[in-house]
């Protein structure tokens, strides 16, 4: 962080044992991400996007190499410490939303704040404002099973954003959404990025997402093959 980088990776290698052999999913990945970036990991299926995202999120450990996230060397963190890193600084958005099925929309969004031990009144304010943000404050009492895909993903975004994390990791957030919902959700994330300076890292091969990116890192076969700045070209109001 001293140098202004939110994420730094050094010679990351990730291998998975398959049968008796080893499959290399990431090879010598070196990248730096600065605060406030809106960045995408792109590349064909199987190129290692999710694997890299998981390592950045301290959900997985590299076979070799080092990752520093928000000033913390994730390889050296205990279970408890990496849970704290995620709880305090990171937000996750999954392709399949991963809402907790027995909780209401409100309770799902409240969950990260409960983990932070925040007091009731403050929790309430933040949950309601997050739900307003994604336009779902009227669905607070609904259960996930009654929501559409777009609505579910908006709840997941509210849950990831409610604690104002420094970094949001989003794995294929639009894969299950139609075009209109995708653009909706992306517009929302751009707004969060601009207003709160939240850093976004996507893993995606969705063109709709790619149009919004300001930086694109292309992976192929576990290697970074391209790392370029791009000019976002979001569609006009109402999509195309």
């Amino acid at each position: 962080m001293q140098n202004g980088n939110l994420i730094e990776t050094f010679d990351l290698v990730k291998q998975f044992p398959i049968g008796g052999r080893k499959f290399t999913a990431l090879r010598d990945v070196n990248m730096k991400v600065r605060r406030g970036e809106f960045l995408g990991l792109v590349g064909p299926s199987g190129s290692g996007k999710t694997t890299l995202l998981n390592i950045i999120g301290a959900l997985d450990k590299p076979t070799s190499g080092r990752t520093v996230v928000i000033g913390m060397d994730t390889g050296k963190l205990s279970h408890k410490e990496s849970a704290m890193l995620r709880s305090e600084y990171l937000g996750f958005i999954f392709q399949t939303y991963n809402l907790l099925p027995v909780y209401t929309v409100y309770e799902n969004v409240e969950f990260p704040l409960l983990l932070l031990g925040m007091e009731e009144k403050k929790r309430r304010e933040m949950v309601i404002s997050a739900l307003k943000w994604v336009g779902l404050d009227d669905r607070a009492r609904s259960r996930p099973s009654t929501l559409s895909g777009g609505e579910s993903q908006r709840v997941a975004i509210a849950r990831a954003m409610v604690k104002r994390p420094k970094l949001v990791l989003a794995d294929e957030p639009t894969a299950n959404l139609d075009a209109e919902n995708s653009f909706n959700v992306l517009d929302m994330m751009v707004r969060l990025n601009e207003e709160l300076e939240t850093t976004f890292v996507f893993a995606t091969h969705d063109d709709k997402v790619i149009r919004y990116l300001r930086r694109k890192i292309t992976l192929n076969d576990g290697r970074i093959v391209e790392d370029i700045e791009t000019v976002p070209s979001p569609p006009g109001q109402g999509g195309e």
Partner: protein
Amino acid sequence: MLVLKLALRNIIGAGLRTWLNVVVLSLAFVLIVWTQGFIQGMQEYSQRALIDTEVGGGQFWRPEYDQYDPLTLEDSHAPLSPALRKLVNDGSATSILITMGTIYPGGRAMPALIKGIDPSQKALNIPAGMLGRVSDGDIPGLIGQRMAKTTGLREGDFVTVRWRDVGGTFDAADIRIAAVVITDMPTIDQGQIWIPLERLREMLRTPGEATLVVVDKDTATVPEAGGGWIFRDQEYMLKEIVEMVKSKMVSTLFMYSLLMFMALIAIFDTQVLSIWRRRKEMGTMMALGMMRSRIVALFTLEGALHGFLAVVAGAIYGLPLFMLSKKYGFPMPDVVDDWGFAIPQKLYPSYGAVLLLGTTLLVLVSVTLVSYIPSAKISRLKPTDALRGKMT
């Protein structure tokens, strides 16, 4: 606190499934307590009844006497020792003389125990006083309702009885049924006929003798009898029934443990077999920054709460049930007559603290274990594995 709050949220959120589990589990809980209380009540009753009608405060036996072998009766009689005579004269004990005989109700021969009892005795709850009803020369006899049924004898009937006296000589006489006694106790009823002690002594030519001497149950200290008489205390006399009831308790407990097991399977199913949904839930919670130990605690507590709710629910509908049955008793069907011990017309179950607490503990501990083990297993997965399957 957080974990408790979340666990409550989880089980309330799970709605119907939670209630189903709780209902099944509480049913198992109530049934276990109910049946065990029932049997415990039965034991208490039959012990009391046995003491009242048979055991008293213990019995003095002849050394040859074996209560399960009628053939030993021939040698099991002797005059009372001075100590015993004093006890009997004080009204603290009563003599009983027993012999094997044959009776001929309606011309059929059947073996019967002929028991001599003092019509004025107070030690046992046997209405021997009714033997005084027949005043003329007839030998009066008392039988129980089961004996009346098997022999077809009724009050006022005569029945011929044949016996052997102490010298081995056969003799016969008619006994007139003075009364048919309604009793819960098959042991003072089936296959036996009660007549006045002095008459039986005359018939056997054994004046002043007895087979056993029953001590009144209120007698504080029982003296040494001397003269070869052996004292069998209550514990000895009740050993068999206590064991019988115990085995009954174990076998019914086993039955209802099966029910309990089924309830546990239902919980097990919620906690384990829906592993996919829950596994993803756990992975999601890990990704959101929840610590493993807390996740395990959460899922364990969730299961334990099922047990807790089941106990509470069980108490809500069980306690009034227990209370009412304890107060008003429970009418017993006749079929259980062949259980081998006294079955009252109405049973008053008995629910001890050990039973209630023990069953509560059983429910709580087993439910908690069944929840802890799988949660601990799943939580050891890497978060990515826990999340996987859907997240690519």
